[in-house]
């Protein structure tokens, strides 16, 4: 089931399904490794939230996370 990245609980793994904004903040995230088809983990849910992206920890506003549609992995 597809959900928004900011809705995932802490610890959830997911695969990026769609990014529905071309905002500069999302470009930055994409350069950091958030791309369609790639894996991402939510380390801490909240606003801002913490992601694990390519082995790095990245803090992002939920305002940004809301534009990332993901498919949660079991």
């Amino acid at each position: 089931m597809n959900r928004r990245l900011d809705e995932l609980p802490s610890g959830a793994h997911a695969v990026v399904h769609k990014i529905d904004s071309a905002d500069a903040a999302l470009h930055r995230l994409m350069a950091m490794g958030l791309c369609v088809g790639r894996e991402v983990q939510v380390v801490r849910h909240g606003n801002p939230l913490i992601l694990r992206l390519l082995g790095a920890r990245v803090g992002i506003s939920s305002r940004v996370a809301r534009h990332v549609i993901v498919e949660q992995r079991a």
Partner: protein
Amino acid sequence: MSASCCPPATSTARGIRTIALAGNPNSGKTTLFNALTGMRAQTANYPGTTVERRVGRFEDSEIIDLPGLYDLEALSEEERIAARVITAKPDAVIIVADALNLSRSLFLTSQILEHGVPVVMALNMMDLAEEAGLKIDAGKLAQELGCPVIPIVARSGRGLDDLRAAIRRPAVATPATTCGACNDCRFKTRYAWTDAIAGRVMHHQSVTTHKLTERLDHVLTHPVIGVMAFVAVMLGVFFLIFQMATIPMDLIDGLFSQAGAWVAQHLPANDLRELLVQGVIGGVGGMLVFLPQICILFFCLALLEDTGYLARAAFVMDRLMRHVGLPGNSFVPLLSAHACAIPAIMATRVIEDKRDRLMTIMVLPLISCSARIPVYSMLAALLFADSAWKAAVVFTGAYLLGVLAALVVSFALKRTILRGESRPLVLELPSYKLPSLRTAVLMTMDRAWVFIKNAGTVILAISIILWALATYPKSEPPREAVALQEQAAKLTGAEAQELQKQADRLIGRSALENSVAGRVGRWIEPVLQPLGFDWQIGIGIISSFAAREVVVSTLAVVYGVGEDVAEENPDSLYDSLRKAERTDGTKVFTTATCVSLLVFYVLAMQCLATQAVTRRETNSWKWPVFQLLYMTVLAYGAALVTFQVLRAFGVT
């Protein structure tokens, strides 16, 4: 120019090679830059921008430290500048890659390789990678990329000799492999390429972050505990600033007053001597006295940044700061401004977004800095001589008013001239590590130098100008003073000295009254009257432009207490001020006037050195002018309302 003999001739006519140092933020770029260039780095801005350009010498080459970046094709000012440097084809580019995050480093690498410049990759943090059980085949990676790959540990210096040797080789083979044209999603294609390479050269692909980092972050990024931890850390920094700075500050103060006394003794009494003692020595001392606080602040910030904590502080404060339209990382400058607005404005460089940074710079001088403390002390004593806790309320009120004004103004700016949302947070939280003392010391020295060069020269110039304004035109000593001097000549011992001192005070007071500063004070009196100020306070306000605390000694002179007495025994100054009367016989420092003056000093922009730094950091005259105008209007309006309301309610 350099006379180095060993490396072969280079491509540029000048004989100096240009080497750009590129890499992701937190890849250890600055540590490597310091290790390669030593203490010889120079900081300036890229022409026409506010992005800092650090340049250092390495043998016969010039190394440019590019801003930390993830993507050459992005839209931010830093990334555009970095891209411009690389498209200008430097003689070589050193890419600092994080061994713990090779895939991401390769993303940037692929973009740089496409520009066809000679590249050397410094594969940094090899020690941490080994600890995490990661094996990277540097030789194979070099083959894949078509450029030398040197495994290093910038922090300890491991591999640096190999790196130096690789940089010295002038003609680096232009890489054969690039990721190829990207069609629909440039990120996706590029990352497919980086993943493929990383997969071929690495033995253990998924990296787990440091256990310690995870455990610390559990606490330090917590929405409640994290904020409390941040407040505790900042309190600690402030304790250091205010406690440790007093010793060197007293030392500098003492040294300069001794130097002044020495010059006063050894030069004949003339204007040149006064200029040297009061204008130059006083001015340099008045500027250097801020240096200890600034150094301690930047040393602490450099250490905190190096440990990785500053990113967490920005993270936890982000949600709170958003409400007023400021980003989380504006909180450190806002707190630093309680020491001095100048280093705080310099510290806004951590704020990436131009609009966010401007907004922070605009409101920073509203925060009560330490130069306001002597003014608050004086007014608190005038208001409540008998009660320490009431004086404490005055202080707290003044500080709160400053913070409140900063929040209200940023809220207003967000809806008017700096419209729009602040840039949302996207911030890497690097693994915690032990900070490097060397980096912190270099950073502190760099900032101290920027302060001396920019703020210092302005403070010195202003002190000389204000000295001249308060000295010229000269006037005859008043008749009472001459009479006292004559009387003193007839007497000997303590009595004569006392009379002489009284005469000196009268002369000092009348000289100031008749000087340009005194005349301007009288001239602006009609404007200040609605605030409850008389022309003597006007002189004080003018003299504050060198530094706010100067108002105390100026008032001491205009109310005839004598500067030296006011310094040794502030109570006698407060007594005289309390007794001071207007020409109509009413008291000058009524409660209404004191509160109005307090409000004025909390809100007014009376520090031209801050303006000079605003000019430097915004690269435009528009913003310092705007800052001066809005703060003057705000201070005048608030003091006017305060005085008139208090008077209407019968408070005198």
